[in-house]
């Protein structure tokens, strides 16, 4: 075979770049299209309310103070339920990651109960913890607990053994190794686990507020849904989405503060 000519470049591609402006522009563009389609009458209002209608519904909720009543009730449940599930999950996760005594029993229980839909357990929680706040917080805490255990145990397992051996070679105490090597080594994975569990908690919020909740974004969304009040339904969904964004942003800030070494 004979070759002639300049060598063509063939090493390009497979290097996608992030353009944050394009992300924002896409969202704004989609909302604008949606609004235009509504104005043009292509989208029936009951089928999908216009962004304008959702904005107006949100504005009314905010002005009447209803939004804050619902939001504060939901935030309190989220904060307590998520914290409870996270703290207990971290404790069992570290135990599974560190101690033979806890490893197999802990993983057996977690593996058996993790796939159970927590929504299906709501009636049981109501019997156990009452129809008030107890059952709602328990639903969130249960939903957060299992993924936290699994994620934390995995995070501890993934701390490089070479670093642990190094500290053993310098005679650091067991407690020092846990505090100075395992904890910071597992922190990045634990924090990214928090992103998942906060989302799980927001999803479960609606389930938890299904029964016996007077206030709460979840309760509000369900009530609006039952009345086919789609403006308010979507206004509630937007609030939940914003909540998710706010939590994700907060975790991002915490990551930047604690994991500056990366």
């Amino acid at each position: 075979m004979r070759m002639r000519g300049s060598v063509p470049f063939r090493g390009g591609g497979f290097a996608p770049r992030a353009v944050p402006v394009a992300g924002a522009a896409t969202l704004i563009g989609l909302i604008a299209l949606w609004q235009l389609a509504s104005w043009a009458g292509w989208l029936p209002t009951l089928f999908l309310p216009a962004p304008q209608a959702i904005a107006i519904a949100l504005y009314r909720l905010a002005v009447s103070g209803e939004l804050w009543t619902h939001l504060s009730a939901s935030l309190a449940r989220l904060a307590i339920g998520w914290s409870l599930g996270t703290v207990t999950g971290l404790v069992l996760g570290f135990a599974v990651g560190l101690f033979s005594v806890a490893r197999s029993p802990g993983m057996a229980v977690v593996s058996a109960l993790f796939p159970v839909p927590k929504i299906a357990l709501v009636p049981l929680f109501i019997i156990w913890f009452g129809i008030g706040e107890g059952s709602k917080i328990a639903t969130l805490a249960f939903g957060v607990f299992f993924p936290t255990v699994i994620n934390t145990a995995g995070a501890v397992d993934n701390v490089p053994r070479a670093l642990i051996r190094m500290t053993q070679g310098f005679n650091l105490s067991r407690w020092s190794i846990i505090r100075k090597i395992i904890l910071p080594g597992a922190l990045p994975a634990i924090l990214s686990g928090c992103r998942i569990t906060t989302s799980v908690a927001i999803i479960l919020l609606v389930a938890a507020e299904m029964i016996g909740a007077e206030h709460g974004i979840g309760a509000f969304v369900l009530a609006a849904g039952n009345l086919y009040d789609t403006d308010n339904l979507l206004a509630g969904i937007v609030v939940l989405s914003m909540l998710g964004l706010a939590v994700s942003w907060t975790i991002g800030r915490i990551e930047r503060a604690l994991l500056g070494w990366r």
Partner: protein
Amino acid sequence: MTAGLRLSFSGISHKFRDLLALDRIDLIAEPGEVTVLLGPSGCGKSTLLGIAGGLIAPTSGEVRADGEVAEDCLNPLTYVFQDASLLPWRTVAGNILLVLEDHKLTGAQRAARVEEMLALTGLSDFAGAWPRQLSGGMRQRVGIARALAVRPGCLLMDEPLSALDAQTRGLLLDEFAGLIARAGTTTVYVTHNLAEAVRLGQQIVVLSRRPGRVRQVVRIDRPLLGRAATDPDLLAIEAMLWHLIRDDAVAAAREIGDADAG
């Protein structure tokens, strides 16, 4: 000058499951001397070093450490690892400080030791740098600074230069020779590199391919400082060592895909 420890290995054998990695090793690392463990990959030399410092329990046999250590010694048997094993979430100074924190020293004493070690290894300008910002050679310097900070009675060095490029390796080899000679610490140095062996070794223990046995002990009675890479006597010893291990090295290299148990 620290007098250093005498490290006596008697009847050390080690099995990984059914695989005999080390077979009845007897040897003595004399106080203040550099003993090089030389052998092809997979001969168990790193395992032997792990046994020497108590990080691996041998299947049979015993290592004894006898002698005086310095008054201010914090960790008699101290490792320098192949990959330096630095904590990525601590700065250079923080990594050295780590091994002083568990001991009863005042803050000022700790700071003084860290500063002294940084100066000794030429790292003073990098005290606040993160490990990810350092080159391989610099990381390995931090590794030796950390090891010397505890005023060891015996240095256990596991191929500390093998992950570096040839130029950096040559430069660091000279530095290590100087640091070891000045500290006067008993040193056990594991390598498969002949040039490192003749540059640093006062006693070179040649190990056979798996199962590792002591094949020959070569002595070089010449001070570490002043040994040159181009010294004809040393080159002759290097050639003799190559002759000794060549067949084993070739056989070891042919065992493609075999896990490196060394």
